[in-house]
């Protein structure tokens, strides 16, 4: 396996979706290539950092409106 193939298979590898033979070649390449080892590590760090995103929520007006709607709905029910 070459590096340019390796970098395209990272997500499949992480999802455990590589066919057995490809997974073996992927791991063999990983053991021998520090550039690709770094690439995989950076991919993992990117995924982890993306998971830390706490995107801004909805506006405080919308939040207040929805909390009121929840309260009113429950009162009617």
């Amino acid at each position, binding site marked *: 396996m*070459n*590096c*340019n*193939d390796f*970098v*395209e298979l*990272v*997500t*499949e590898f992480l*999802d455990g*979706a590589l066919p057995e033979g490809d997974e073996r070649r992927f791991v063999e390449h990983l053991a021998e*290539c*520090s*550039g*690709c080892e*770094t*690439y995989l*590590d*950076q*991919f993992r*760090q*990117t*995924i*982890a*950092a*993306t*998971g*830390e*995103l*706490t*995107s*801004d*929520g*909805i*506006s405080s007006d*919308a*939040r207040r*409106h*929805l*909390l009121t*709607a*929840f*309260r009113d*709905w*429950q009162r009617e*029910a």
Partner: protein
Amino acid sequence: MAGPRELPTDEVLVQRLRSGDEETFALVLDSWSGGMLRLAMSFVSTRDSAEEAVQDTWLAVIRGIDGFEGRASLKTWVYRILVNTAKARGTKESRTVPFASLLPQEEEGPTVDAERFRAPGERYAGHWVAGQEPRPWDIPEDHVLRGEVREVIAAAIDELPPRLRTVITLRDVAGYGSDEVCALLEISPGNQRVLLHRGRALLRRKLEAYLSGAHDVASGRGHA
């Protein structure tokens, strides 16, 4: 791999919501609305419109919680309502995201610049060109810099083509598994992975560019 935050089990959440527990409603509202907003942005053209889609979704959740049957997780159920709501809005704005169609041109080609690999015919063709291999980096511990890293990622996600943005948002921000995302968007596992991989590779590239600059900052050059 649930979401980023620990919430009570669905059973507890649903029972509390049905009994009118406002604290629980505020909890799910605050936990999920951010991700929902990002997701809605994939289907509509403005942030206002996305926010309205999120609001409409929550109103539908409030009205429909008694009818929730628990066949999917609560969050999946909420997200499905959102996707349908946002899609309907997007269609009205004629901004549909054709998930089923072939990949558009800009989403094809290698995810790492071909010039970083040795050309075909060269010795070790397809291997990293010396000096072009990724240099190890660590996401800084410092929480200010960590915050900057998150801003870089958030900005990069906003710039992604819509379908890449949607899949990244579901998988890596909201923490869904591949099966759930395929079901939610009605795409094949292979298609889902291609979109996810391209999205992640683009984010990695932005981080690489940012972190190679940030090292200078850390070594005392200061930054604007």
